[in-house]
């Protein structure tokens, strides 16, 4: 019996929350306001978004605000731990300040994920809209080819591509793009299929709108929401993954500062100086977590059930 009461209470709690959001949002007018109101109430998503912006700004400003030069080595202070005077996060195996390298690392670790996700999203939008709306032979061909790429575990495929092509930021970004496109295209494709069947698309067609007008005016706006959610969540994963590639030596090369390379540098000294490996990893975790929370918040905020 207690279980049944719990479920009822849960239902009531959810309903009360839904109603209060709707009350607040009723003052807003456009669906954009509704969405923004719902998002603001999700404190975790907001915290995630703020943290991401903070890390981004620090990374951009690194040349101006970092306490030291990322390549400057103070060999007498090698492997000093967290809390060393003047070096709050300690120093690495070559005597370089870890806090500084974390700040500079963001200038590599963030774009190396941001660029592929953005580029893949554009490519996937084109492919998915074509395949989902116009269908036909071209559409079938696109989806069949992507099905083949679905057959590869993504980690393996990206490592193989990046590894075979050689080290460097461009190759890593390219391999991540190749790996992401099938997944994002599938999301665009299925959403396009669903939206194409809706009445308002029929109505637009009946009133004489051209295919292009329908795609940009009706389909695309409705495809964007799930894509934005997917893109945000995958950003977190890709930052971790790109760092993993650098960790394996497949991305940027030392002495460039990057969160993955920093973690790899600490492997040899793990027993005596664990902070060298663990600190960059914590930052990675927090950034990925922020993107995940933001993505979850966006998804909940875009949930049609909240639009009353």
């Amino acid at each position, binding site marked *: 019996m207690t279980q049944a009461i719990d479920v009822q209470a*849960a239902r009531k709690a959810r309903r009360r929350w839904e109603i209060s959001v709707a009350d607040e949002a009723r003052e807003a007018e456009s669906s954009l306001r509704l969405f923004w109101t719902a998002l603001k109430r999700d404190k975790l998503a907001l915290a995630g978004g703020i943290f991401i912006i903070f890390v981004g700004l620090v990374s951009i400003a690194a040349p101006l605000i970092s306490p030291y030069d990322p390549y400057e080595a103070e060999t007498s202070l090698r492997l000093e731990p967290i809390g060393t005077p003047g070096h709050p996060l300690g120093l690495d195996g070559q005597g370089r300040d870890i806090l500084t390298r974390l700040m500079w690392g963001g200038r590599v670790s963030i774009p190396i994920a941001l660029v592929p996700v953005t580029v893949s999203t554009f490519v996937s939008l084109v492919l998915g809209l074509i395949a989902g709306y116009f269908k036909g032979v071209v559409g079938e061909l696109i989806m069949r080819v992507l099905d*083949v790429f679905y057959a590869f575990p993504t980690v393996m495929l990206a490592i193989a591509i990046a590894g075979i092509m050689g080290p460097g930021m461009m190759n890593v970004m390219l391999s991540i793009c190749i790996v992401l496109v099938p997944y994002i295209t599938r999301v665009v494709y299925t959403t396009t299929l669903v939206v194409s069947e809706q009445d308002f698309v029929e109505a637009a067609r009946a009133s004489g709108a051209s295919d292009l007008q329908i795609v940009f005016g009706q389909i695309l706006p409705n495809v964007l929401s799930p894509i934005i959610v997917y893109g945000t969540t995958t950003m977190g994963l890709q930052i971790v993954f790109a760092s993993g590639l650098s960790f394996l030596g497949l991305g940027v090369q030392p002495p460039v500062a990057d969160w993955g390379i920093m973690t790899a540098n600490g492997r040899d000294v793990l027993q005596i100086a664990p902070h060298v490996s663990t600190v960059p990893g914590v930052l990675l975790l927090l950034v990925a977590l922020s993107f995940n929370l933001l993505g979850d918040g966006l998804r909940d905020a875009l949930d049609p059930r909240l639009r009353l």
Partner: protein
Amino acid sequence: MAGYIFRRLVAVIPILLGVSIVIFLFMQLVPGDIAATLLGPRATPEKVAAVHRQLGLDKPLPVQYWLWLVKMLRGDLGTSIAVQVPVAELVIPKFKNTLILAAASLVVAVVGGLFIGIISAVRQYSIYDRIGLVLAIVGSATPSFWLALVLMYVFALKLRWFPTSGMYSLRGPGGLPDVLRHLVLPAISAAAIPLAVITRLVRSSMLDVIRQDYVTTLRAKGLPERRVIYGHALRNALPPIVSITGLQAGFLLGGALFTEVIFSWPGIGRQLYSSILARDVPVVQGAMLIISFTFVLLNLAADVFVAYLDPKLRAG
């Protein structure tokens, strides 16, 4: 059911063919000329041409692909450039080791995920739910290579409960207990993300099912709660869980790579990585072939199992 299985098997063949084409084309991605690389400083135009003929590189690409494919299907995966050993001999024992690691990780992820997910769903909004959700959300953001290092530091280096690397101890007694000791840390660090994903999925899938009217009816009929949850709700919540578990299994096959490298687990992931660094293309191709084919068949098995659970899906 048999018809569904047959149709799915037929659909898989063009995909496997496509996979083989992509893997074959991999050779083309290597920068520079393979023959020149192999010959090194002694390369002259005549020697390069001779090696081309020897490796069959002077034939048109589709012909090369066909010859390569026929060889593969006969079980001849080529010879490693680095160690002059047949690729199959090199790669298959390593693949077995990866299967052991992947299986252990999958067990941890599925059992853990089901356990935490069901408790979260059944006691929604309680402290157990909150802890479960936090674990799942943080877990899915955890870099696996970082987690491996942290676990290694705490449990292997500091507490000395488990060994830091390898699959067997060099001077140990060998056998199952030895492998299990070496398996614990790698299995946990590889299982972290799949566990997080499965937990959230089990929770949301169970929540959807529990809210259905027939569950209330079952309770009204006086069925004990345990039967309601495990006998009925869980069975109906399973299809998406099984599909995603299939995907996670594939992810483990490839993603265990980080874990294998860090813990020096002698698996196919680690072999793939070192062969990539050595530009040993035949081994890379052979390893990718085995991993991808297994991934495809695993997902097929998951789909078949889901169709078995949910007859409505068999029509497609």
